[in-house]
């Protein structure tokens, strides 16, 4: 059957989102990682706008705005400043080599689609596949957090996960109630501020942001 145009748009954005997620998973350089994150945020904003427009859910405009501010502007900006302040220019080294990660990622995507398939047929919303994609991108960012060794990249993975969640919220359920959205946004903001603070402390304590310095606390 022929989907309505905006639905196709949303699917397109969903695909972009997934693509970006993969890109982040495969990305070695941290700066471009941040840019990719920003791009993901942008895609998120666009898709939110489309949903808002097509379904006349006005509060989605606010959340789109919120996302724009937070995920596209503020957070990348903070991260850039951090990197400059900590002058880190290193490449992201991973625990598992990239191709392997990609393969696992593909498996995850398939799994996520299967997972979402039974659910999304209940979706009265215009977009069926998006839930699966959201799940997929969440799992992918999870995978990214597992495989990266630098605190910063872990944080980015965390935020990317946040993106996926947000996408799920908007596309699958036309967004959560405003108060919740605000709360979530606030938490993300505060959270990333704390991250920032932490980077400095970690840096000055361990002379590096490499998390394998932080393996002292364990059972021996």
């Amino acid at each position, binding site marked *: 059957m022929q989907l309505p145009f905006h639905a196709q748009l949303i699917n397109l954005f969903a695909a972009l989102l997934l693509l970006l997620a993969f890109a982040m998973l495969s990305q070695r350089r941290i700066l471009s990682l941040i840019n990719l994150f920003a791009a993901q945020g942008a895609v998120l904003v666009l898709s939110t706008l489309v949903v808002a427009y097509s379904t006349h859910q006005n509060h989605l405009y606010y959340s789109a705005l919120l996302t724009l501010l937070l995920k596209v502007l503020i957070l990348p900006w903070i991260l850039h400043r951090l990197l400059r302040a900590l002058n880190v220019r290193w490449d992201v080294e991973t625990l598992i080599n990239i191709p392997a990660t990609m393969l696992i990622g593909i498996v995850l995507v398939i799994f996520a689609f299967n997972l979402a398939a039974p659910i999304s047929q*209940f979706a009265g919303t215009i977009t069926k596949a998006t839930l699966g994609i959201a799940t997929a991108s*969440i799992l992918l960012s999870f995978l990214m957090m597992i495989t990266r060794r630098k605190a910063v990249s872990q944080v980015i993975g965390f935020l990317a996960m946040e993106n996926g969640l947000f996408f799920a919220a908007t596309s699958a359920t036309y967004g*959560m109630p405003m108060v919740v959205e605000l709360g979530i946004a606030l938490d993300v903001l505060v959270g990333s501020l704390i991250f920032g603070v932490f980077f400095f402390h970690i840096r000055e304590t361990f002379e590096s942001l490499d998390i394998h310095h932080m393996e002292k606390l364990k059972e021996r």
Partner: protein
Amino acid sequence: MELLLVLGIPVAGGILLGFWGHRDFAPEINAGMSLLTLLAAGALTARIVADGPILVWEENFFVDSFNVFLVALTAFVAFTTSLFSRPYMRIELSHGKLSPNRLRLYHSMYQMFSFTMLLALLTNNIGILWVAMEAATLTTVLLVSLYRTPASLEAAWKYFILCGVGLAQALFGTILLYFAAEKVLGPGGTALLWTHLYEVKGDLEPTVLALAFVFLLVGYGTKVGLAPLHNWLPDAHAEGPTPISAVLSGLLLNVALYAVVRSKVLVEGALGTHFAGNLMMGFGLLSVVVAAFLLSRQTDAKRLFAYSSVEHMGIMTFAFGMGGALATFAALLHMTVHSLTKSAIFFAVGHAAQKSGTQIMANIRGLIDSNPTIGWGLMLGSLAILGMPPFGVFASEFMILTVAMHEQPWATPFLLVSLGVAFAAIFGKVQPMVFGTATAKRLPHPPALIPVFVHLAMVLLLGLYIPPYLAGWYRQAAQLIG
């Protein structure tokens, strides 16, 4: 009205202490605020007990007998802990472990933390519940990393990342829940309100809720400290300041478990199977076993009791999972007595560690000579937490074990072995700390041990005699969720 007070006072306190938190009288303010919160909570409780559940602020806040008793408990332990932290933090300050600014951060965050927990308990909106949990995580992260030692930073980082990721799962679960509820309740606010969900739980889409519960369990379960998601817990407990260990063990875990139980109620209602219960039993049992066996390897006092918290959380989760009036009753009782006992133990351990200048148990000896009150506090507390009568922990474990023997006989061998091993481990480590010849030094400030004995006295009371209103209250709660 009380609800406003209960939530408002801590916020005010947080802001206030944000300015004055480094002054000499800051601890008193902290304690005073907590006391006010406690009074407000008491009033609220009285009201609920008197005339049933209330629902306010376009239904975003809902107080029933289940959460009001947790509110009271939270407020109470928060208060006693603030009492304990007065001398404790002063001593830390005079030992030069903290700068005044840190102290300010500590006090202000302490209040904010209790606010977030109360919020999480009181709200009716599972979205806000999530927000509050996340906020609680953030505040406690700051508190855990208070000393800024490498160890504390590492602990805080792990805590942050693991719980952050966990809560992200929880959020996805919440979204799925919303997604399912929307079909029934239509879009907009009401679809996140627990009360409404509770009414329509029968018609919610089972497959979605099954998935949702998985995410919620993994998410909030991380915060409860269920194995194998518990890894952050011992680090955070051991490296943070002791009052924070006390409230983490005593309160935060409860709140997280509360969230799990709330969602379990919905899912069970929707699925009509025992799916959620089985999952919880499995996780609970696993946590009990893992924690029990890890106990015997500990050298750090606070780590030891952190693992014991994992164990007890496992027991509660198991009991909630079994369901049924008696088991749920027991689980609620266990929640109460565990909070009281565990925080009391942490108080005692904290002072013991300060006295002997280390948390390594091998270097803490003969407390009963150097400071009988701490010694007896630790000894009795440990015995209580190990489920020795006549303390209340025994009462709940008694019911849980007997019910388990009847409902889930397969589980009892694991419980039996774990409890035995846990007993050997903890007691074998506590006894030499308490007995023997002393190694300890004077403290600049007299330790505050009233909280310890107040808690233990209450636990003792609960073991021998549960006041009828309290019992009725538990019973209502048990009906609500059992």
